[in-house]
């Protein structure tokens, strides 16, 4: 495929074509999260980003992760964030800038960071294609098995962390 400026681009396969659409959607939504002036719209864009990331997981044949992403991020975290926005009524109707006083430095830093990562991702010779994965129920079962055998410490620590979150957050947010 020949682009106008004489750049040669290989014709994407159908799978790659669909991936490009999903990735573009995710990237645009991700950008909208940080540049939207209305905080509630940011939260909506964040929800869309989470959906896009779930789609990316599907391309990676990690369907359990894709569903967990929707369950926890869209169903719980995005909803908590929307709640917090409403509770703190932090609408910034363009009266003041949504950015703090170090936005110049941080935008430059983020941009340079992005260029660096991009160069790294493009320059490194990654292996061409991964091995074959049979994504069936056995894979999900194997994942569950990993939690209670190999990664049992991390798993229990996460349980402890959730317990602490339950205790600590209730102490913090309760009406006194």
């Amino acid at each position: 495929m020949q682009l106008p400026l004489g750049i040669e681009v290989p014709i994407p396969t159908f799978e790659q074509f669909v991936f490009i659409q999903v990735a573009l959607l995710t990237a645009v939504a991700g950008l909208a999260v940080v540049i939207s002036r209305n905080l509630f719209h940011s939260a909506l864009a964040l929800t869309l980003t989470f959906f896009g990331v779930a789609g990316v997981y599907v391309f990676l044949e990690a369907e359990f992760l894709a569903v967990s992403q929707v369950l926890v991020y869209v169903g719980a975290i995005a909803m908590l964030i929307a709640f917090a926005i409403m509770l703190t009524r932090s609408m910034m109707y363009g009266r003041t800038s949504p950015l703090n006083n170090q936005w110049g430095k941080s935008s430059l830093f983020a941009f340079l960071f992005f260029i660096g990562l991009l160069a790294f991702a493009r320059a490194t010779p990654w292996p061409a294609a991964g091995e074959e994965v049979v994504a069936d129920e056995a894979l999900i079962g194997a994942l569950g098995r990993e939690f209670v055998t190999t990664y049992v410490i991390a798993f229990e620590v996460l349980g402890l962390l959730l317990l602490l979150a339950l205790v600590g957050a209730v102490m913090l947010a309760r009406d006194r």
Partner: protein
Amino acid sequence: MQVTQWSEALSGWLMGLGLPGWAAITLVYAVGSFILINYGMLSVLLLIWITRKAISRIQDRIGPNRVGKYGLLQTAADAAKLLSKEDITPYEADKIAYNLSPVLSVFGVLMLLAVIPFAPGLTGVDLNVAALYIVALGSIGIMAALMAGWGSNNKYALLAGFRVVAQLLSYEIPLVLAVLTVVLLTGSMRFGQIVEMQSLHLGGFNLGLGWLGVVMPGALIVFFVSSLAEAELTPFDLLEAESELIAGFHIEYSGMKFAMFFLAQFLNAWILAAVAVTLFLGGWQGPGVGLPVIGPLLGLVYFMIKVYGVYVLQQWIRGTFPRIRIDQMMYFAWKVLVPLMIGLIVAQAIIQKLPTPVAVQYVLIFIANVGVMAVVAYVLQKYFREEQMRTKRSFEPTSLIGSMQVSEKGTMY
């Protein structure tokens, strides 16, 4: 067999006609999902008719009987009326949230149709994670309610939105845990597999009566009660109270946008009934589904009978029971259902590891489930007796002079 198989045959045929592979697949899938979505949206016309007929019979009325035979076309006429209504956007509404919310609420419900097994070989997709998919996609409705409440710039809508979220979140946990008991028993999240395991073979003939609801009636009851709350039906419709108050979070909506919320609500009740049937009542299983030609057809008939049966049961409860208060709603979810379900899961996990034959395990699981049922029944019965007392007391005749009732504590009623 599932969609990916008949769709393969169909797309193979299309490719034979000279279409490129990706176009054939896209076309076939688009047609399949178009049929599924339209089935969902049109069946709501029937569902609303069933609801209105059932509730009017309970209330000793006739119900819709003018448009069409038995008033069957009443809902279609209502839909046409809604189509001709003005589309109002309130002042200073958050345009994006306000307009996106009805679409999102329908989207979240319609997507659930994709994994429901209607008959042997008639499933949208038989996902490996279907059980979790149902739960995950179900939570989109919560976001939609929040968006509607926030977007319409009305404090009552926002308050109702908050209440919807509080209720749906509270009852989502018992719902998830009830699904988990099924997954724990069957060792599978695939709906095809779960339905397959509920067959009961007798001498090579599939009786199709090995329903999981027989082994775990407690989980079934908890699932059913939570699904009533998730569908915002009457014991739990304090968010909306459509027979007394104006609507809840969708108060500012009119015309087609309102119709979308309405559609989502009815379809959600139906789909939760379908999930309950799939998980606990054998899905399309029934006597004779193993037969070669007539089997799948019988399966579809069994499935529909069961789902509409559960749906009518939901509406029956809706027409019979009094509405509960928000504090009772919270109490029932967090202090009754969640501890019970956690206890049931731990008990079931232990029972399934006991060194006994499977039949004994099933009996033990059944006993644990009966315990859960007993507690739920006790709590409900206590609540309704108190409610009866309260109602009786408030209707007691009092004359104007000298009959102010003084209780023992000296407080006046």
